[in-house]
Structure formats: structure tokens, C-alpha cells
């Protein structure tokens, strides 16, 4: 039981002033070095220091301000976990344990992929957006959504949108969730395809995760029920063995079996996604989830330690010429808005609002813990994004563009790639490209887009500098590929299943039996629809001569930021409806920024006359050429010309859909907010009624000092009306 100490409430003692001044000073110096260095290479440590210093200050001051003044959390109020405790869905869970669960649920491949692509603009724009974005937008969204959902017994974002905004906003939110899910799965699967294509080592080790997961499933089901740690330790050992064995496979007669083309990989992934969606979770999904969570947390921890020990030097420029020209080969468009679209996860990720309004709010012990869990976990994810940016920025720019520019630009040989990179204004020799591929045990690195190979090369350099030297680079490269592909495939499993449930639930309104999860024809049909939908975009991405990532990643970013707009709109509406109008800017300003970014990006994608940027301009340019019977580069024949036209039209229509959804949700919410503002009486609260709490628990990581006071002092607050 924490000892109560209500004295010293102002919290301004000398030690604390000195400590926070020092943190501020370190952060400020680091920012100075990061922002002002030009033409000289700086150490990645400065990025780390700028990030950690900013996070600490934001957590201590801004998050605390939001929790105390804006949300007015009240630790005398029993949380849903305490009131509705059933030992299963609702259970007051230790904050450190819940932090682990929440972080594992929000962090995925997003913060690893986006920053790698955004490195095309230089390291500075990405660093600023990741740090400033998370402090004022991403972490705020996660925490405020968590708060409002917790006050409503863990209602989901979709339900809150319907309750607070109305059926139109609610329906738009539901469509947004489904659409983002499909695009998300397609883009993530595309990342895996690009990482594994023509790589027998990578394909073998990823393929082995399936039998390993099945074995763990049976182990936990029949041999040793509930021994999760034991099963995971065995699984991880087998996984590491599979990574090592991959190099033997590469040099053996099996190599051809595991050398797959991108198209073959698409077919395998679609079959796998369908099977994973209809099989019982104990066989594949649950054990994979244990494995990927362990690998995720373990590797991220290892990377953080290695970055600090290796202290690599950045080779990337602070700001490249592509930031203003908008003619970058990795993705088209200039810094504003496309850095803010490309880096979604790590700075502001709408998807998190689904987790923040899902399981987490039902497990919170004390209201004040939302700061550590909602805000804190997002800061950690942001730090993961910073590390990904570092990993991409230590690579020589010539190599970076040879890996990340689309195949249509680079050609397929090291000579053509070297020439294309020189045309872009960077330098790499064909020999250097071959040597780089050999060093990591790959046949080629040319046009291995999608971010995963780039990240894996950066990570292998950082890891090899600390553990094992250059001799282990190939191992670390494939370890990194395995780490990323493993949890992308877990997201694909889980996402397909979630999409299937959403579809079953929605179509169940039209045809009742569809809703039953035990009705097999319904399960198969809806699974096939979901797999078919993301499979379509995946196939489109693999075949697009313009480069799938180049075309699809902006759509993914727009979709994710669209969901963030929905979440921030719900939060802002709730702030206003609950009588916190003067604090509405806390989520209102990030919403305005997010809407500006998303709508500008959509506008450019829809209306830009530049065929590289605008989807419809692209479609008309290629269809005009097609009518004349001419073939435009990078297409090589008329069939590819047709592919470009179809893809551009589909992507353009999707952009229109996304932009319309944002406008509908915001307009509908503005109507509700205005009505609230004009209403003479306060609107009825949708909060669960106040119940006195009987448990006592600290707010933060430790149970001493500041937290002890917060727990005690909040006990004297009056419940808000």
C-alpha cells in the first residue's frame, strides 16, 4: 500500500527543477545539432537525445496537463475494470502489465516502414514530424480516446461515433475502418512480398514459422496447456534456428523451391490469409501472436541498446532536394503534405484509436494511469519510428535509392540501377551494389522497395557493429527480415479475421445467418471477400510498372490519417459535449492539422495535373497514349499500359472516397458541436455514472514520489458533474 503524503502539493522542489532543467537543456542542445548541422555528418545519438528529451518533457508536463486540467481524471471514480470485473474482459490489470499489452497491440510494422520511405526527404523532416507529431497529436489521440472509452465502459470508436455524432458519422466511421483495413493489409503484404521475392533464405525462414506455430499450438492445446512462456521460448529457439538454416537452404538444391517470384508469393499469401482466417485461432493465430510479440519487443529492445552502443553516423542529408521538388523516386509529392502522410504510425496513427477503445479501457485499474498507458506507449512507438529513420539514414544515399526506387526506373541489372541512381544525382558503382547484396547474402538489392530490405540493411549494420562484426551481417539481415515479416503476417492473420467479422456483422443485417460465426458457408464467403479485396490491391501493387509501394503507400497513409481524423473528431466532439469547450483545442488543433494534411494530399492525388502525382492525370496520360498505340515508360507493352490505367483509376476513386468520408464525418460533427454550443441546457451525459472506487494504485511506472502524491491528492477532488 503506498504511503500517503499530501504535503508539498506544488511539486516544485529544487531537485525537480534542476532535473527538468537538465533534461530540457540536453534536449535543446540535441535539437540544435540535429537542425543546424549542414554538410557534415552527425551522430545518430543526437536524434536519440532530441527524441528522448522531448518525450520526457512532454510526458511530464503536457500529458500531465491534459490528464489533470482537461480530462480531469478522478482516481476516486471506479474504472469499468473495477465495477464490471468478471476476471476476463474486465479486470483491473497492473499498469505495467497493461502497458505491455497495449504497446504490443499498437506497435507493428507501420513505424518501421513509413520513416524508411520518408528518408527520401532527408532525416530532418521525418524527425521533426515524428517527435512533434507524437507529442501533440498521436499520443494525445491515443490517450484521449482511451479516456472517453474508459468513461463509457470500453465502447468502441465506431459505437462512440454513432452515439455522439449520429448515424451518418457512425456509418462513415465504419466504412473508414473497413477501407483502411483492406489497404493496410494489402500494403503490408506488399512489403513482405518485396522482402521475400527472389530470396530463398528469407522465404524459407518465414515459411518455417507456419510449422513452428502449428507445433506451438498443439503443444499449448494438448501437451502443456497454459505454459505460454515455455512454448514461446521453444518457438523462438526454433525461429532462430530457421534463420540460420536459411543460409544452408540458399546454398543447397532446395534453393530453387524457395526462390519465388512476386506473383507466386501473392498467391501463397492469399491462400495463407484465407486459411488463417477460417482455421481455429489456437492452431495458427494465437501461437503466432506469442511469437511475433516476443520477437517484436525483444528486437526493438535490442535495437535501442545497439543504436546507443554503436552510435552510427548518418549518411543521409538533413533535407534532400526531393523535399521541395516533389520528384522523389520513392514516393511522389513534396514535403507538405506527403511526409505527414508517409509517416503515419509513429507520429499519428488512426488505427491506435481502435485499440484504445477496445480491450485496454476495460482493464485499467485507475483513471490516472491513462497517461502512462495511452500517452506513454505511443511515445515508445514513436521512438521505434526514430530508430527506423536512423537505420535508413545511416545507409549511403546511392544504395538507398538503388533499393527504394521502383524497378521501372532502375531496370533489373546493377549496371542499369547504377546509371539510374547517378541520374538522380547520387552515386553508387555496379560493383558496390553487388558487394552490398553479397554482404547480406542476397542475390540482388536493386528495387527491393517496401522499406523492409532497407531497414534490414540498416539494422544489420547497427547489430553487426555491436555483435559479431561484418561476418554476421547476413545473419542479422535475415533476422531483421524475419522479425518484420513475422509480425506483418500476424497482422495479416488478425486483420483478415477482424475484417471478416466486420463484414459478417454488417451483412448480417441483411441476411441473418451470416452473423453466426459457426455457419461455415458464411465464414468462407466473407473470408474470401476480405482476402479477395486485399489480394486485389496486392496483385495490383506487384504488377504495377510504376511501382506498387510508390502508388499504394500514399493511399495507406491517407486511410490511416482518415481514421485519425475520425478519432480526433469524436474526441473533440466529446470534449465540447462534456462542457470542456475551452480545452477543445487539445484535440481540435491536431484534428485541423490532420484534416489539412489529408485533404491536401487527397486533393493533389485527385486533381494534380502532374501525372506522377495525380491518379487521374496519370490515367488519362496513359489512356491517351494507349489510344495512339504507343507505350510509355516505364510500361513495356500494351498490357502494362492497361494495368497502369486501371490501377490509377481505382486508386483515384479510392482517394475520392477517403476524402469524402473525412468531410462527411467532420461536417456532421461540426453540426453536433454547434447544436451543443447553442443549447441552453447541457446535453445529457453519455458517461457511465460515478461509483466510488475501493482500490488504490499508483499512476506511473514507479510507486514513489510524484505518483504517490497524485494518487493521494486526486482522492480529494470532487467528481466532475
Amino acid at each position, binding site marked *: 500500500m503506498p504511503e500517503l503524503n499530501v504535503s508539498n502539493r506544488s511539486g516544485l522542489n529544487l531537485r525537480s527543477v534542476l532535473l527538468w532543467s537538465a533534461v530540457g537543456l540536453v534536449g535543446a542542445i540535441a535539437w540544435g545539432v540535429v537542425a543546424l548541422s549542414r554538410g557534415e555528418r552527425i551522430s545518430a545519438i543526437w536524434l536519440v537525445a532530441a527524441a528522448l528529451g522531448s518525450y520526457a518533457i512532454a510526458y511530464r508536463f503536457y500529458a500531465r496537463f491534459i490528464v489533470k486540467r482537461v480530462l480531469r481524471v478522478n482516481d476516486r471514480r471506479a474504472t469499468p475494470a473495477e465495477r464490471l*470485473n*468478471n*476476471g*476476463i474482459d474486465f*479486470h483491473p*490489470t*497492473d499498469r*505495467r*502489465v497493461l502497458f*505491455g*499489452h497495449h504497446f504490443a*497491440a*499498437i*506497435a*507493428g*510494422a*507501420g513505424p518501421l516502414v513509413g520513416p524508411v520511405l520518408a528518408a527520401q526527404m532527408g532525416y530532418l523532416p521525418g524527425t521533426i514530424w515524428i517527435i512533434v507529431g507524437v507529442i501533440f497529436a498521436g499520443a494525445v489521440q491515443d490517450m484521449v480516446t482511451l479516456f472517453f472509452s474508459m468513461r463509457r465502459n470500453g465502447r468502441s470508436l465506431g459505437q462512440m461515433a454513432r452515439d455522439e455524432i449520429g448515424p451518418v458519422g457512425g456509418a462513415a466511421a465504419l466504412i473508414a475502418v473497413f477501407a483502411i483495413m483492406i489497404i*493496410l493489409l494489402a500494403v*503490408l503484404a506488399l512489403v513482405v512480398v518485396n522482402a521475400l521475392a527472389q530470396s530463398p533464405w528469407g522465404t524459407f525462414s518465414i515459411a518455417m514459422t507456419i510449422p513452428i506455430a502449428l507445433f506451438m499450438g498443439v503443444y*499449448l*492445446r*494438448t501437451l502443456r*496447456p*497454459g*505454459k*505460454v*512462456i515455455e512454448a*514461446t521460448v521453444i518457438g523462438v529457439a526454433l525461429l532462430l534456428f530457421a534463420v540460420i538454416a536459411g543460409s544452408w537452404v540458399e546454398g543447397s538444391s532446395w534453393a530453387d523451391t524457395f526462390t519465388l517470384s512476386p506473383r507466386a508469393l501473392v498467391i501463397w499469401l492469399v491462400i495463407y490469409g484465407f486459411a488463417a482466417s477460417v482455421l*481455429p*485461432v*489456437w492452431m495458427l*493465430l*494465437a501461437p503466432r*501472436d*506469442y511469437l511475433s510479440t516476443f520477437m517484436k519487443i525483444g528486437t526493438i529492445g535490442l535495437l535501442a541498446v545497439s543504436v546507443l552502443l554503436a552510435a552510427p553516423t548518418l549518411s543521409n542529408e538533413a533535407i534532400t532536394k526531393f523535399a521541395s521538388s516533389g520528384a522523389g523516386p520513392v514516393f511522389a509529392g513534396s514535403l507538405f503534405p506527403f511526409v505527414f502522410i508517409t509517416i*503515419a*504510425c509513429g507520429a499519428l*496513427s488512426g*488505427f*491506435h484509436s*481502435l*485499440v484504445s477503445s*477496445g*480491450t485496454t479501457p476495460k482493464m485499467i485499474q485507475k483513471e490516472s494511469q491513462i497517461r502512462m498507458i495511452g500517452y506513454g506507449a505511443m511515445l515508445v512507438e514513436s521512438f521505434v519510428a526514430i530508430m527506423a529513420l536512423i537505420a535508413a539514414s545511416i545507409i549511403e544515399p546511392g544504395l538507398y535509392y538503388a533499393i527504394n526506387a521502383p524497378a521501372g526506373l532502375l531496370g533489373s541489372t546493377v549496371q542499369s540501377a547504377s546509371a539510374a541512381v547517378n541520374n538522380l544525382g547520387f552515386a553508387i558503382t555496379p560493383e558496390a551494389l553487388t558487394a552490398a547484396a553479397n554482404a547480406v547474402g542476397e542475390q540482388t538489392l536493386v528495387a527491393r522497395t517496401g522499406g523492409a530490405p532497407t531497414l534490414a540493411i540498416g539494422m544489420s549494420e547497427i547489430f553487426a557493429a555491436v555483435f559479431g562484426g561484418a561476418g554476421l551481417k547476413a545473419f542479422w539481415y535475415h533476422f531483421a527480415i524475419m522479425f518484420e515479416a513475422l*509480425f506483418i503476417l*500476424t*497482422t495479416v492473420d*488478425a*486483420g483478415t*479475421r*477482424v475484417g471478416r*467479422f466486420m463484414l459478417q456483422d454488417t451483412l448480417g443485417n441483411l441476411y441473418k445467418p451470416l452473423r453466426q*460465426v459457426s455457419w461455415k458457408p458464411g465464414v468462407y464467403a466473407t473470408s474470401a471477400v476480405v482476402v479477395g479485396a486485399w489480394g486485389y490491391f496486392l496483385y495490383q501493387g506487384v504488377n504495377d510498372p510504376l511501382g506498387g509501394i510508390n502508388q499504394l503507400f500514399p493511399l495507406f497513409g491517407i486511410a*490511416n490519417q482518415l481514421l485519425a481524423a475520425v478519432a480526433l473528431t469524436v474526441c473533440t466532439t466529446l470534449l465540447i459535449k462534456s462542457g470542456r469547450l475551452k480545452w477543445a483545442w487539445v484535440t481540435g488543433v491536431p484534428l485541423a492539422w490532420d484534416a489539412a494534411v489529408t485533404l491536401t494530399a487527397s486533393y493533389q492525388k485527385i486533381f494534380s495535373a502532374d501525372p506522377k502525382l495525380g491518379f487521374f492525370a496519370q490515367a488519362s496520360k496513359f489512356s491517351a497514349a494507349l489510344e495512339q498505340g504507343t507505350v510509355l515508360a516505364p510500361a513495356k507493352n500494351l498490357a502494362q499500359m492497361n494495368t497502369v490505367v486501371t490501377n490509377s483509376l481505382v486508386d483515384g476513386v479510392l482517394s475520392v472516397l477517403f476524402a469524402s468520408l473525412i468531410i462527411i464525418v467532420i461536417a456532421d460533427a461540426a453540426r453536433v458541436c454547434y447544436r451543443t454550443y447553442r443549447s441552453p441546457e447541457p446535453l445529457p451525459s453519455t458517461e457511465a455514472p460515478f461509483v466510488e472506487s475501493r482500490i488504490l494504485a499508483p499512476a506511473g511506472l514507479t510507486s514513489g514520489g510524484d505518483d504517490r502524491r497524485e494518487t493521494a491528492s486526486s482522492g480529494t477532488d470532487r467528481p466532475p458533474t
Partner: protein
Amino acid sequence: MNIGTLVRTARWYLREVSGESLYDRYLEHHAAGHTGEPAMTRAEFERWRVDRGDTDPPARCC
């Protein structure tokens, strides 16, 4: 903090985070419910727990 406490803390954290300790929690909750029905065995409980995922999959973000 000595080694013993450290090991105990780590073990506690891993058991909680991995869900291994959920069965203990279930037993406590069951005993407190005074329903008189016999509690599920470990194997039954773990099956029931993981099968819930068939209808309620875990949220996994990007």
C-alpha cells in the same frame, strides 16, 4: 534490489504479460463467485480462453 527479487519480479511480469497467470485469476474469481459449480481444469480453461479468440480476435495494429 537483490538478484532474488529481480528474478521474482521478472517471473511475475512474464507470467502476467503472457497470460499464464490468468488461470490463477480465474480460480480466485470462481471461488469468490460461490456458485458451487466445479471450476474448470487448467486444460479446459486454456481451451475455453483461446477459443474465445475465434469470435473475438485480438486487435493488432500496423
